[in-house]
């Protein structure tokens, strides 16, 4: 009897927590997923990840526009804020903001740290360890 009551209480708590968590979730999408999903424009804030396309960067001190790609699809990004020193063409970024159907408006950018290590011979070694992005 007691166990059933406790189990019920626990289930209720989990239900409550998960219902609550859903509002705080930040989704992560790739350019292909964004373009392929008509609901993305009304989805609110989410994160978009990809590589910065070479030649697409237009930089001013407070704003930067560029395009990110996942290899198949490319999406235009309009980012407000000073990009970090490490920001440059060809690197991986994760931007957070909203998608209006044609441009992604971002106000937060995380540089994905390059996982490539240089070796002595000039070759490239890629460990799977990644850089924390809190």
């Amino acid at each position, binding site marked *: 009897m007691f166990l059933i009551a406790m189990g019920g209480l626990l289930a209720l708590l989990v239900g409550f*927590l998960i219902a609550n968590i859903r509002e705080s*979730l930040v989704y992560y999408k790739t350019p292909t997923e964004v373009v392929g999903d008509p609901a993305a424009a009304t989805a609110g804030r989410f994160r978009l990840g990809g590589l910065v396309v070479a030649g697409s960067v237009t930089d001013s001190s407070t704003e930067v526009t560029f395009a990110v790609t996942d290899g198949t699809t490319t999406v235009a990004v309009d980012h407000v804020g*000073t990009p970090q*020193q490490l920001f440059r063409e060809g690197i991986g970024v994760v931007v957070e903001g909203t998608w209006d159907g044609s441009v992604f408006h971002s106000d937060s950018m995380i540089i994905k740290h390059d996982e490539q290590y240089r070796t002595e011979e000039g070759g490239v070694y890629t460990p*799977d360890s990644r850089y*924390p*992005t809190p």
Partner: protein
Amino acid sequence: MIAVVGFGGVLLALISAVALVVQGTRRFLADGSASVSLRLAVIGLVAGAAVAMGALEFALVTNDFSIEYVARNHARGTPLLFTIAGAWAALEGSIVLWGLILAGYTLWVYRRLDERDSVGAAALAVMGVVAIFFFGLMATAANPFTTLAQVPADGLGANPLLQNHILMAIHPPVLYLGYVGMTVPFAFAIAALVAGDGTAEWLARTRRWTLVAWSFLSLGIVLGAWWSYEVLGWGGYWAWDPVENASFLPWLTATAFIHSAVVQRRRGMLQAWNVALILGTFALTILGTFLTRSGVVASVHSFTQSAVGPALLGFLLVVLVGGFGLFAARGHLVASSSRLDSLASREGVFLLNNLLLTLFAFVVLVGTIYPMVLEAFTGDRVSVGGPWFDRSAIPIGLVLLGAMGIGPMTPYRIARPGVLWRRIRLPLEAAAVAAAAAVAAGLRPITVVATVALAAFVITGIARHADELARGRSGSYLGELARLPGSDPGYWGGMIAHIGVALVAMAIAFSGSFGVRQEVTLTVGESMSFEGYTLTYLSPFLREEPNRSVIGATIELSRGSRILGNLEPRLNQYPNQVQAIPTPSVRTGIREDVYLSLVRIDQGTATVTVDAFRFPLMWLLWLGGLVVFAGGLVAYTGRRKTSPIPTAVTSDA
């Protein structure tokens, strides 16, 4: 050659662990008779683990790049400190450290083993099982002594983030002392279940061992937060990252146990609950190891994806099914029949504390594993935002803080209002004064005012009690005050830890509510004001250090006409990494920290952009962590007299 020695050590430890299980079980079955010797097994385990660690360190220090681990995680230019720390900076080495610490704890438990101590013998056998798993990992999936056919001229060097700060040498071993230490209480709990030992004897010992592990875990968590603050440069110390949560979860349940164990000792209640808490704590450490070592979460802690992940997951299942299965089958043997006289009693507050701590742990657990479960089932990649955790943690934390203040004032069995009122009046007054002062000083968020009031309540309550006792004694007041902790180390150690927690709570509330971030762009020679300070960009700098090249900005910090010093936020470029690693520069002050993190530096236009942060009272966080650690150690020394063997007491200063 050294690889053979090291691997030989791993094998010796593995064989000894098997022998420990066999001999421990035999000794348990022989009612703890010392005629079954565990000596060789324990010595073999310790020696094997020490040889493995020694060989790894030797290979690192002598640049032996024929060993793959060394070639991957070390380079000739790596400074000595980070060379030594390199032994735990990657997956395989960190498991060697785990094994060494486990062997150390095994020796410690063995040294305290009594003649006819069958529960202790069974506990050692359980520790042997855990050791088989970890040394088995080293012998197979996580072998640190794999050699390379072609020996490179130089290694790749450590992960740059891990050779950026001295804390890297301290934080992992301390955290492991806590994490691995939780194996000991687990072993005793399993042993008590197997033996059907319903006495409080196993519990007193288990609590002592938990205190050791808990103290180190507390310190390790705070050191990790400090590392994050000093190295990562995002302007914070805690992000509810799965890796941080992994260390926090067992801390919560172990804290709950330390408290509920007191109830069992004093009042003979909550026995079964205590066993469940210990099993849960150990399971959470294995879950945490799985999260941080398997690559399910991307972080600086998840080194590589390998067979280690599934192995740890399997071990977690064994612990959960085996531990709780045993608990279900034999829990009634250790369960108690005593009932609570009244909720308004010390036991009642302990119960509240336990409910809150387990609720807290449960919430953090759900938030940590939900994204993984969701991705496994739907493929959606999500992250749970920090605000969600904050929303749950703040109310739970505040109620806990309140319970922490009231608990020690509440008598056991039944709290008569008169007694309680006499003890609570002064702390309540202090809380009211502190709250009024906080409001008058312009502190607005109600959570901050509440934290200040509750911290004052907790600390005044403890001070009042100490004052009362010291006055009631014959010696000089200060002398008696200094002797108090020694008179009842278990209690006063706990009180010291409470003071530490109150300080930590203040630091969290202040830095969380009044932390300020501002992006500042300056050209050389230009000044700008930031929160009452003036930042002046003196010059950019470029330095070649043995293991890296550094580019940064020298920024002068002044307040009014007083120059406080130069801050040098920088980017470190390591030869083995394409991208540079930003490192912030922090000036710690009594009132607040000023924290600069380099965003962008442009030599051509001579401009620099930094993220400037101001965090009030950060030092309280580090100090509070140390105080909690000290309190745990004081409490530990106090349990010594209940130990089965009164060992030659080394007097504590």
